[in-house]
């Protein structure tokens, strides 16, 4: 039983089903991210949790408290949910100073003036804005506005912090900086966070757990490494990063130690761990099944010559080399197919030479050929 529970949430807009039966269990103090492309329903889910949208059906519990239940006809107004929220546009009120913006939630709760002052100063210090409290809110830079919005959302010690793509309006350098600060801040104050983003780097680097959303449904929930290296669905696999994929045929079934012979390749069959099967696809493949072998490009090592005693080595020809600064992008051909590879800029390889690709078996996932 999670701290924040969402059960069977559904929400339709006109003809579009934005959220289609989403269940979430978020632990207290957890940093949970909803990750997905725009229009996947992640923001709508967040807004329903906030109480800013009414869903068509579903239930939400925060601890023991029911915030929303369609069957019990419960709907707690957003101002009674004790949740802080940071908006994509920050939504700072331009007619108030930084201090007034942050003090607003406390004043609404009739906190006494000296306590308001103390808490606002603490919150501003927490986000690194001490000394700017008398500025008008529009007179701040984007990064500063973002911090004010964060301070305003945290100042009344909410039970949950909701973040709606808060980093997307910042430039690349600032975004990286804020990402690290946000993580450090969350570790320090241990607030439960529900974070929404379309940026996989943000999702992977910040979260304790990630929920991948697509078409209003949760595709996979897991810790970042799990969803990245062990994607449960084709969508999760393709959304989260580049994939190096080769066709093959199962030559030895799982119960005898799974092996896959690659199509049109004169190398020994790949040895694949049984855990390489995406969890969502039940049933081990039988011998003779057509499969697709998928691996993240960074799980491939490139060798100049056949490495001895290492399994899963595939010979290839280097067609092209492109220097990208901190790394190289290689175009390799394996028999009749051509693929892209990324490798750190430490090796010197020349176009046209023969290379040997080691597919690390822990990085391999197997998919049915249609996927």
């Amino acid at each position, binding site marked *: 039983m999670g701290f924040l529970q969402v059960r069977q949430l559904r929400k339709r807009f006109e003809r579009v089903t934005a959220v289609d039966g989403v269940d979430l269990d978020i632990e207290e103090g957890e940093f949970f991210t909803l990750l997905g492309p725009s229009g996947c329903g992640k923001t709508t889910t967040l807004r329903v949790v*906030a*109480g*800013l*949208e*009414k869903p068509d059906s579903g239930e939400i519990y925060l601890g023991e408290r029911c915030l929303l239940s369609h069957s019990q006809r419960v709907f707690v*107004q*957003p*101002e*009674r*949910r004790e*949740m*802080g*929220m940071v*908006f*994509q*546009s*920050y*939504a*700072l*009120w*331009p*007619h*108030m100073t930084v201090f007034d913006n942050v003090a*607003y*939630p406390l004043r*609404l*709760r009739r906190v006494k003036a000296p306590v308001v002052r103390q808490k606002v100063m603490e919150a501003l210090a927490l986000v690194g804005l001490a000394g700017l409290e008398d500025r008008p809110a*529009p007179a701040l830079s984007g990064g500063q506005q973002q911090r004010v*919005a964060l301070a*305003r*959302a945290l100042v*009344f010690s909410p039970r949950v912090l*909701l973040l709606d793509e808060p980093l997307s309006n910042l430039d690349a350098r600032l975004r990286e900086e804020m990402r690290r600060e946000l993580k450090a801040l969350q570790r320090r104050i241990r607030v439960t966070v529900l974070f929404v983003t379309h940026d996989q780097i943000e999702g992977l680097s910040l979260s304790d757990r990630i929920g991948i959303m697509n078409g209003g449904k949760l595709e996979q929930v897991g810790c970042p490494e799990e969803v990245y290296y062990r994607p449960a669905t084709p969508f999760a696999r393709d959304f989260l990063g580049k994939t190096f994929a080769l066709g093959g045929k199962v030559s030895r079934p799982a119960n005898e130690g799974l092996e896959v012979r690659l199509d049109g390749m004169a190398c020994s069959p790949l040895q694949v761990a049984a855990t390489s099967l995406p969890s969502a696809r039940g049933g081990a493949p039988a011998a003779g099944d057509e499969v697709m072998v998928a691996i993240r490009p960074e799980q491939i090592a490139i060798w100049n010559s056949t490495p001895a005693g290492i399994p899963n080595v595939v010979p290839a020809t280097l067609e092209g080399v492109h220097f990208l600064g901190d790394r190289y992008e290689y175009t390799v051909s394996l028999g009749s197919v051509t693929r892209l590879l990324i490798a750190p800029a430490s090796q010197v390889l020349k176009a046209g030479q023969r290379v040997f690709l080691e597919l690390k078996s822990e990085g391999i996932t197997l998919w049915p050929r249609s996927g």
Partner: protein
Amino acid sequence: MNEAPAAAAETPARSWTPRLHRGLFLMILLIGSMGFYILYPLVLILINSFNVATIAEPPVYGLQAWRDAFSDAGIWVSLWNTIKIAIVRNLLVFPLGVLIAWILARTNIPFANGFEFLFWLSFMLPSIAVTFGWMLLLDPNTGLVNTWLKQIPFLNRITFDIYSFWGIIWVHCISGLDTKVILLTPAFRRMDAAMEEASRMSGGSTLKTMFRVTLPVMTPALVVVFLLGVVRLFESFEIELLLGIPWGFYVYSTKILDLARQEPPLVNQAAALGSIVLLLLAIIIPLQQRLIHGRQYTTVTSQFRPKLVDLGIWKFPLMLSILLIVFLAVGVPILSVLGGSFMVRFGFFNLPKTWTLEYWQMALSDPRLLEALENTLIVAGSAALIGPILFSLIAYILVRTRLPGRSILDAICWIPSAIPGVLAGLGLLWMFLGTPIFRPFYGTLFLLMIAFIMGGVTLSTQILKASFIQLGRELEEASRMSGAGFLRTYFKIVLPLMAQTMVLIGVLKFLFAARGASPIILLATSETRTLALLALDQIAAGYRETASITVLLVVLLTTGLALIARSFGLKVGIRAE
């Protein structure tokens, strides 16, 4: 098109100087003519308030007009009445307008777009039509509502008298709400909904959010709309003319008319009163400009469709209230004017013969009506043709060129928006009667055209300037690079691209000319009366049935035209910017 590209190519060094000279010449011409046209009449009002002789006679300077004006209590009363009406009207209309705009833009009220359209329709409805429509209902002796009240027991001692201060206020409220609503609704809609949501998430209820976030964030827009209303304080004319004069209640604009129409005309006293108003405006306008430019919040972000506030059980009561307001503003006046023109005796449904076409037959064969219709079409039509061409040239020069003197021209173009119609008319009257070479134009339609073209300078140049800025310089530069000169580019590229805006300006000019009475009431003669003036005369003379028909024709030429233009995709109206 008198450029010679070949010559320009041969002598590139020289080609700059003549162009600048030509531009400078054009600038001087424009500043001179617009300045003369707009400023000279105003100067004449000021000068002639110190003139004792009447128009068209050699001036004799003295303070007699001011002395008379100051000793005549009526002048001070009329000024005070103007201000009193403005204050009461704004106190009633402004909060209601803000509330309705908020409801239409930010809540889940049904038919919000339909209501916005109806308020737009109400804005397009000439105030003569609204006033006359309500006169037919609330005349103390013959008004339909009062006749009905007399037949109801217990209520038969109540009489609503539209010829009273509160009658004037009633019509002002009914016809003044639309401007606030159509200006404020888009402003409320553009506000970032996340600001309100952030307040809800911080623990604020809907009501607290409205008072502590929504309204303060909207303050700049509210201030602008409120101040627009303050300047329009001196604009008001038709309602007071129809409802005030019958019981001797004057505002300054009807007082000026009254003074100028006396026998012998007291034009110098009218000029003194006009000067006082000009001085008041000279104080108010800079204040207004400073307040408007002082605070600008950027509230425009549109990440989401704004979250609609759930009105809950208030949804249908509020919808019905707004429906009632719109019905009072649009439905009631149109229905009563229609009834007035088709009923044998308006409001008498139990006569043996209730409906008739007789009045229409009479009116349509009445040479005075036909003459007024012709005058209206000529004046409004030529304003609609000349206005866009002249103002597009001015706007183009203001936006696109680097000629010196642009700020002077811009400032001159701002002035007419602040000058009430009656004052402009008084100034033009003086200019045309007092200047010998212009005197032959008096009594011609040309004079009315001049008045109407001047009235819309500010709005027209502002709209056109915005379009030129949007148009982008590259399209023109591409034409210049292809070898076309300035004038060829203007006529072949700029004007076709601006066609939609030009038509819009033309339609607006036509609308204002077809409905306006205050700028021309001092300038028109019985031969050059337009429909609006004819209607005013007919109403004053008590010909209710024929007046209904004239008013209906004005409605058709204005509201009808606006509806047609809108259905063709033209956004006829005003915006908050």
